């Protein structure tokens, strides 16, 4: 009698890459819904454009490289990349810029390096940074959250703006769009205004930018869900947000009139989304337990530095990409003590 062979272990657990990615997508849902609520249709349209672009681009490249298409697409990693990128884009970004950014993320940042598992940089952030440096005007043209403007553009107006790149008849971009809280903070601080004055602006909510703070909370919920389901470890988000809070708190304590309250850093812009969903991208992040703490903390510190003294209002993308470069080195020097190895002969 002949039997099937194969090497041990002969058992396999229930996990798969698809399952991991599906859990990430699930965790993104509450925060995404909150963003839709505050910023309207534009985000949904971006999301659709990005996801379709990502899937098509990935399929095309896989065909070119002669790799199995369906087996790879099913891992959902392209969808996750597109989704994260779409969340970071201004809701009314011209459609072709979204397409360009997504294509860059999938083709250059992911597939040219060998596809999932081989990309040294977080593809979504690579796409985001490309767009930010290429199209600084459209990339900083955010909508004010619904709580401020009272009326978001209709679906038809959103479609019109995204696909024509022009505001609806009789309106100007200045009327429709608004700065993000981080942007506003930078601009006003650079005009030597005091935090206490800036805070009187209706842009500010209880602990961050209005609207933004709630988006942050919902992403936090998704992040905690991922930690609970062991999709990510607590180390990177905790160390990143912890370090950001610590440094921000330090400067705030020294001079509260020129440095915003630490919670502002957490709940405005992409800190929460970045900490739970972007910095934790396993492929490009550090993988040793101690390494993850260092990696997260350095991202947190960099975010503060770039936000405070750098040329761009938000800094999560740059910080993550910079630390992606350092991740292999961090891993090498933070190898855990193995079983039966004394602390003293740690390499």
């Amino acid at each position, binding site marked *: 009698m002949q*039997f099937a062979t194969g090497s041990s272990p*002969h058992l396999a*657990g229930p996990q798969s890459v698809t399952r991991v990615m599906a859990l990430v997508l699930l965790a993104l849902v509450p925060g995404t819904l909150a963003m839709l609520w505050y910023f309207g249709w534009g985000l949904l349209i971006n999301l659709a454009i990005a996801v379709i672009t990502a899937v098509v681009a990935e399929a095309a490249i896989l065909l070119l490289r002669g790799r199995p298409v369906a087996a790879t697409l099913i891992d959902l990693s392209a969808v996750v990349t597109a989704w994260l990128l779409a969340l970071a884009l201004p809701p009314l970004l011209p459609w072709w810029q979204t397409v360009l950014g997504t294509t860059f993320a999938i083709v250059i940042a992911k597939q040219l390096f060998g596809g999932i*598992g081989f990309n040294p940089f977080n593809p979504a952030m690579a796409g985001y940074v490309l767009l930010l440096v290429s199209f600084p005007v459209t990339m900083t043209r955010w909508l004010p959250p619904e709580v401020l403007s009272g009326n978001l553009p209709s679906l038809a107006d959103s479609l019109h703006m995204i696909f024509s790149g022009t505001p609806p008849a009789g309106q100007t971009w200045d009327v429709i769009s608004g700065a993000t809280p981080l942007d506003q903070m930078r601009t006003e601080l650079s005009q030597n205004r005091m935090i206490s004055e800036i805070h009187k602006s209706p842009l500010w909510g209880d602990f961050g930018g209005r609207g933004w703070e709630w988006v942050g909370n919902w992403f936090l919920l998704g992040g905690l869900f991922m930690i609970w389901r062991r999709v990510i470890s607590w180390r990177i988000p905790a160390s990143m947000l912890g370090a950001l809070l610590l440094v921000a708190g330090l400067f705030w304590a020294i001079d509260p009139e020129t440095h915003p309250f630490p919670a502002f850093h957490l709940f405005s812009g992409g800190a929460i989304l970045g900490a739970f969903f972007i910095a934790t991208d*396993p492929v490009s992040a550090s993988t040793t337990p101690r390494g993850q703490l260092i990696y997260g903390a350095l991202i947190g510190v960099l975010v503060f530095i770039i936000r405070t003294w750098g040329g761009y209002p938000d800094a999560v993308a740059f910080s993550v990409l910079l630390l992606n470069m350092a991740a292999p080195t961090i*891993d090498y020097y933070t190898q855990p003590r193995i*079983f039966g*190895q004394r602390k003293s002969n740690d390499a």
Partner: protein
Amino acid sequence: MADARKDWSFHGGVHLDDHKAESTGQPVRRLPIPDRLTLPLHQHIGLSAEPVVRVGDLVKKGQLVAQASDYVSASIHAPTSGRVVGIGPQAVPHPSGLYDACIVIESDGKDAWTDLPEPMTDYATLPTADLRERIRWAGIVGLGGAAFPTAVKVNTSGQRPIDTLVINAAECEPYITCDDMLMREQAADVVEGIGILRHLVGARQCLIGIEDNKPEAAEALRQALSTKADTGTEVVVIPTLYPSGGEKQLIRLLTGREVPSHGLPAAVGVLCQNVATAVAVADAVLRGRPLIERVITVTGRGVRQPGNFRVAIGSAADFVIAQSGGYSDAVRQLILGGPMMGFAMQHDQVPVTKATNCLLAAAQDEVPAHPAERPCIRCGECVKVCPAQLLPQQIFWHARAHDFDKAQDYHLFDCIECGCCAYVCPAHIPLVHYYRFAKTEIWAQEREREKSDLARRRHEARVARIERLEQERKARLRQKKEALEQKSGESAADPKKAAIEAAMRRVAAKKAAQPPEPETPGGE
């Protein structure tokens, strides 16, 4: 003292469905002895045993047929009476379907014993060397699967004194229940074996580590211990978590001590033995019996009647399965050992050896085909479960790239091949397969290097010899030349001075001609 023992844990591990109930419903059944028994000469760690019988010889049950050929080796005895009908290569249990030297015995159906050595019931008064010799004679090896010669393992002289004997009764692999059944049915023998082992190595205490999914076995052991006035032996129930039965993991669980990387348990004062080995030791010492049979589990949905069976070593797997009820239609794989560390056989015409603890005839849904391998997403799941606390994904990365030095930097050789990493990997990477490949490659390279080292040393020696001969030849030549010069220069200014100089030169030349200092011919 014993009650104050702390509960320790080890890093990682995975929870698995234990599938033990399938094979523990019936008592251990003795299977008949087959017409043919095939005894591999190499069924233990170390050198192959050396046959001491010839084809055509008649042998009795328990008679020595192959002798341990080295310190690390193990003797083999005839499991029944009959005739030696062949000594030569036969299919042996090996993942690649290897053939290896075996002694084949045809049973005469009488099952007649040879004369056995005297029982050593008064072992406590005997020199430990005599006890070790008996264990060595009996051909006992670790029966948990490792098959390391027990006589070598219990010889702890020259090492740190052993204070703790750890008995491995964890049986953490799913499906396997032979130790469980042995403990339920032969608890008294286990306790006797423990007594001998403790005496042998002078262990002050003995800890029996048993997973909490075997309450009957634990109870049986406690019972047996309470009737013997045995103090210092304790049954320690540990949580069911694979691989708690890994030697280093179990020692950590029971004592909190960490066996050093690349070190032996003796380095932390521990000797670890499997329960079934303890019973074999009791059989050898107290009953004078060699190791010629063992209990194995036959299980999985691929067989009709899962259970535990006492079989003669050398019985073919197909015979064992047929005798125990035969295959069911669902059978897809035949695994020797458990589903995590056992290996899949291509066919069933291989003998049961001393190391065989389980024949798992698995159905499709029990061991599904491996899903296609995907790239590593560096999720770190493998790191979380690795009981050796390694970074499996990094070892994999370098092993795949054939960068074996780097793989070793990441402690490839500390990997115990437990398979936890591959089990949890969402990318379905057969990680252990890569590690085995890397280890084999490194061993091959090392052998190559040793060979070339030897060749280089030989070459260097040869060059040095030629050099020396050449120097000697030159020195002789110079001597001759000088002698000639001397003659022709005799008439020169000061004959006396010249004579002295010539003598000096001769001495120098003579010295130079001596082989040990070839570099200074003539002292120039």
